[in-house]
């Protein structure tokens, strides 16, 4: 079997690399999931469950732990590795109670002045009867508003799929960092191809046109950092060490900002996207 971290993905010239190949890599079997990041980055992790309204969404793991010696709140979408685990985690597609569970932990983080790490890996928020009945749109909308004014630093780390509103619901952050083979898009390339071109086989063209790779996102000013990936899965440890330092430095630096400055910068980060010049 072909290694998912096939070296051909890492060619020097980004323009030669097909976007869709990255999308496939972001979804590949064996790729580390949210829980792997928690296990490797966070010590003394204590998982906390439930949204206090409807239930506990297994598609997202939330809790508190230490990043080096710094208490942090972690909110990680979890896809699971085994089939059984994937079903339990609903393939990382959250219901409204997942967004509300995440928000509850963010509010606690704010109260106790802990930074927030959101680990994003989802094909999208779940599309189902119960999800609609319990207000999927409202739940995401509320997170967008509340994250915009959350008085503590937030970093959203994209480790695999960044599917539309479902990803954005955990990504109104001070910093958006992306693994080299993660993507972030308004719609899946398959969905885009079948809607616009009535041909789901055109997903490669769609992936290219949507500008959804980490490199595109950095070009467009939406992601601040790209985390390059090792060629082999077993070398992934390197990423965890690297991220541990990176996150720690980021949060140490953001402590120097006043709350007002922090929130002003976060607002401006999103406010400037598509701002029309000359007004």
């Amino acid at each position, binding site marked *: 079997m072909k290694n998912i971290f096939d070296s051909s993905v890492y060619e020097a010239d980004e323009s030669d690399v097909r976007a869709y190949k990255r999308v496939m890599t972001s979804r590949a079997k064996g790729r580390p999931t949210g829980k792997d990041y928690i296990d490797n980055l966070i010590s003394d992790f204590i998982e906390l469950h439930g949204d206090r309204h409807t239930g506990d969404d297994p598609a997202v793991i939330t809790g508190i732990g230490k990043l080096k010696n710094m208490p942090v709140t972690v909110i990680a979408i979890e896809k699971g590795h085994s089939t059984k685990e994937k079903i339990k985690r609903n393939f990382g597609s959250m219901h409204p109670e997942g967004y509300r569970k995440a928000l509850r932990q963010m509010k606690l983080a704010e109260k106790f002045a802990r930074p927030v790490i959101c680990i994003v890996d989802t094909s999208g928020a779940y*599309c189902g009867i119960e999800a609609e009945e319990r207000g999927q749109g409202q739940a995401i909308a509320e997170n967008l508003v509340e994250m915009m004014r959350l008085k503590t630093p937030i970093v959203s780390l994209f480790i695999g799929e960044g599917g*539309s*509103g479902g990803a*954005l619901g955990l990504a109104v952050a001070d910093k958006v960092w992306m693994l080299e083979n993660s993507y972030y898009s*308004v719609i899946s390339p398959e969905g885009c191809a079948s*809607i616009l071109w009535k041909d789901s086989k055109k997903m490669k063209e769609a992936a290219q*046109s949507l*500008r959804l790779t980490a490199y595109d996102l950095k070009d467009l000013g*939406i992601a601040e950092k790209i985390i390059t990936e090792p060629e082999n899965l077993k070398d992934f440890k390197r990423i965890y060490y690297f991220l541990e330092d990176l996150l720690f430095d980021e949060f140490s630096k953001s402590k120097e900002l006043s709350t007002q400055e922090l929130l002003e910068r976060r607002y401006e980060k999103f*406010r400037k996207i598509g701002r029309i010049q000359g007004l």
Partner: protein
Amino acid sequence: MLKKSLFQKPENRLETYEKIPVKGEQKQQGPEIPDNMFINCPSCRETLLSADVKENNGVCIKCGNHFKIGVRQRINMLLDEGSFVGMYGDMTSRNLIDFPGYDKKLEEATSKSGEKEAVICGTGKIKGSSAAIFFMNGDFMMGSMGTVVGEKITLIFEYAAANDLPVIGYTISGGARMQEGILSLMQMAKTSGAVMRHGEAGGLYIAVLTNPTTGGVTASFAMEGDIIISEPGALIGFAGPRVIEQTIRQKLPQGFQRAEFMVEKGFVDAIVERKEQREYLSKLLKLHSKEMLV
């Protein structure tokens, strides 16, 4: 035993209402009123004089079915005569990410709708009460939200916050505009930020949801109103019905995602018929006016 559908990886087609043909009960919300002499109401099947329906603000005189109406007609219907002052009307979208075919789509939408984008912003009065307003325009690429729509809505909230005005926003949208890629998704965060700041400045925001309001608009400013009302029968949801049916592989129940269902589930404050909206909004504005505070 686990349902077969559980093994189906959930699809992510969240912003897809735009191109999906409506079917079955969705037909209730008929097409825009044609200029023919007679029209058939898809709800009660009566043959009606189109002039009568137009006169009645695009509502069936027999059964009350709300037909789709044009955005300019809505503005005239709602605001005091001559009170509307348009803002940001010159902004036009560009093909920011060189998406294939988008330039042509924009041209078509402009000539078809006679408008430059999918939202009209400005200020106006309702029975003497001033408000900042935005009306989304379903005739322009299904009211999809790109950067210009997001920018105009953000600007109107910022303007309202600076000028101590309430905001009334009419939504109709298939969701985020996929031809602008991630930039359109970011408009959800941007508009939410502006709604939040207007709210923190003490501003009132009333969202009026019309058929259909889905996708990224539902998951942002449509669901962020202090008060959220809807027209009867309007489809309101995050995912479109077709997407849900494809994901769960079963038919959706009658009335699912309709305004009445959204009231029942607690996500919409009230259903207000088109002809009552002016009076209803006027009352709400007066109840929130500063003069009412002792």
